[in-house]
């Protein structure tokens, strides 16, 4: 299904409306949904865009709902529900990070041996994409002229072709591709029916583990068997380990061809080029990029961009981002949680400790949500914004944790409700003005000043004595 078809599908529109409906306060929800669904029936042009407007409408209703605090809490009033929600979010983020191929690649160590000396070579100004950029004639020129810098250069080009009866994504590749990558290809023991015939074809086929399982039922005797690939015979030479292909192009198999076969391709056939740098040459830094110029056959120079396949130390990068986000947090929001004066109704040490543990759990759960969530988003959108995205995400998440903590009762940890405006700016010199919130279970009142003054510099909690209990029971 193409993206255009997908955007035009009725189930998607209803799913958008149902998602937005969750933002609408319960008593109004069914009528709200019925109205939007009825309206959708008439929309012919850009129904998905029409449905996205439902979110703004739902947010408006949520903000203006007479239900106390309905606009802010999203059902997270209870501390246990809040922790459960964060835990589920963290679990989903981590699950997606290990399921989405691009995100998983960023987490797991490189499968390539000595990845510091591996480089992806692209045409100048076209690096980093999923589209082949180097014509095979330029690859041959590189292979001939750059032997002093590279111990090996490999070429591959993704294509869709028929292998036996299935349509597979096959990489047409130079014979040294897996030698350059230093990927161990497991040559499974040939089965009784899989003995290599005497006149074995020169073309070798390497299968991915996923394709071997899906299309050949994990047949241990597949190696040595001759398969028909795009009408030509090719012998299965092995199966590569799972998750060991992280280069551009999704592949089910690789058709390794000798130089003569590659030379027969049209000279402008574009593919991806990999190079293994000689150890005598200065080693590139992880994630480094550099330019390469090679004299062309027709005069002038062919210009390329090389990018290292070694990843930087992701752990250190994440730790430094977390540290910077904590520094920036103090600039963007006050860190003080408020005044909770001790009195005879004040909570015992255990209750006070419970409040700090609650905050600590929130902060700890935020880390996997922000780190893995950024990876997931980067993988879904195929955009490289992890450092900046993580920094922004962490600052927003830390801020939320602090704001949420300030708005909770120190005794029962439930979100406070019934915000009431008190006074006005003209009252500032006579008394404090701001917002008063109340614990629905009668544990106390929170005074939040609009402007910090000498008499009320930060929010202050007032415990209610048990005599108020009859009002809240």
């Amino acid at each position, binding site marked *: 299904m193409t993206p255009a078809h997908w955007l035009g599908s009725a189930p998607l529109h209803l799913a958008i409306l149902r998602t937005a409906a969750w933002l609408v306060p319960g008593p109004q929800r069914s009528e709200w949904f*019925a*109205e*939007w*669904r*009825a*309206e959708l*029936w*008439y*929309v012919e042009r850009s129904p998905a*865009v*029409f*449905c*996205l*407007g*439902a*979110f*703004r*409408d739902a947010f*408006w*209703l949520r903000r*203006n709902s007479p239900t106390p605090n309905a606009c802010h809490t999203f059902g997270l009033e209870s501390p246990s529900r809040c922790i459960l929600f964060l835990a589920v979010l963290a679990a989903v983020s981590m699950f997606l990070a290990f399921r989405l191929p691009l995100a998983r690649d960023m987490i797991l160590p490189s499968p390539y041996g000595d990845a510091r000396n591996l480089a992806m070579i692209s045409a100048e100004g076209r690096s980093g994409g999923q589209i082949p950029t180097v014509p095979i004639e330029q690859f041959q020129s590189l292979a001939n002229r750059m032997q002093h810098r590279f111990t090996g250069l490999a070429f591959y080009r993704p294509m869709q072709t028929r292998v036996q009866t299935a349509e597979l994504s096959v990489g047409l590749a130079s014979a040294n591709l897996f030698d350059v990558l230093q990927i161990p290809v497991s040559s499974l023991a040939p089965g009784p029916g899989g003995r290599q015939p005497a006149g074995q074809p020169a073309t070798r086929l390497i299968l991915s583990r996923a394709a071997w399982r899906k299309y050949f039922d994990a047949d241990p005797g597949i190696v040595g068997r001759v398969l028909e690939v795009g009408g030509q015979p090719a012998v299965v030479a092995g199966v590569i380990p799972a998750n060991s292909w992280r280069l551009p192009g999704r592949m089910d198999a690789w058709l390794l061809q000798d130089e003569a076969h590659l030379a027969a391709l049209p000279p402008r056939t574009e593919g991806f080029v990999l190079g293994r740098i000689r150890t005598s040459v200065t080693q590139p830094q992880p994630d480094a990029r550099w330019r390469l110029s090679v004299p062309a056959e027709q005069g002038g120079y062919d210009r390329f961009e090389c990018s290292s396949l070694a990843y930087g130390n992701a752990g250190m990068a994440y730790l430094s981002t977390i540290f910077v986000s904590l520094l920036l947090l103090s600039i963007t929001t006050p860190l003080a949680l408020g005044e909770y004066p001790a009195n005879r109704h004040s909570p015992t040490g255990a209750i006070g400790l419970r409040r700090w543990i609650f905050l600590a759990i929130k902060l700890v759960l935020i880390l996997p949500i922000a780190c893995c969530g950024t990876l997931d988003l980067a993988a879904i959108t195929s955009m490289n914004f992890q450092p900046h995205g993580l920094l922004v995400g962490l600052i927003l998440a830390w801020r939320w944790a602090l704001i949420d903590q300030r708005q909770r009762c120190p005794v029962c940890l439930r979100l406070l409700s*019934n*915000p*009431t*405006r*008190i*006074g*006005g700016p003209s009252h500032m010199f006579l008394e404090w003005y701001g*917002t008063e919130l109340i614990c629905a279970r009668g544990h106390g009142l929170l005074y939040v000043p609009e402007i910090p003054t000498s008499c009320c510099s930060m929010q202050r909690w007032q415990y209610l004595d048990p005599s108020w209990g009859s009002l809240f029971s």
Partner: protein
Amino acid sequence: MLHRYNLPVALEAKLSHTAAIILQAIHAGHGYGFSVMEMTGLPSGTVYPAMRRLERDSLIRSSWESQSIADAGQRPPRKYYKLTRSGKATLEASHKRYPLLARLIPSPEAENA
């Protein structure tokens, strides 16, 4: 949010240009959200919240059409909006503020006149 101390404020309703256009569209007979969208060219994310505000301020009122009418038309029942008395008064006041409004979306009375 509650306000413990309320100061007297002017009760004269002043509509934004967008709200006035939507009110005029409803007055002109475009009685449901999508019709207002088509008439005004405003997106759904603007029209529906604006209609909620107008309804909250009692300038318009809504009612669902009966299921039998919808069934006869083989479509889901619509929610229709109409101007209230104060809505009509506000719209008339808005015509002084936005003189081109009535010419932009002529109401049935203006067309018959």
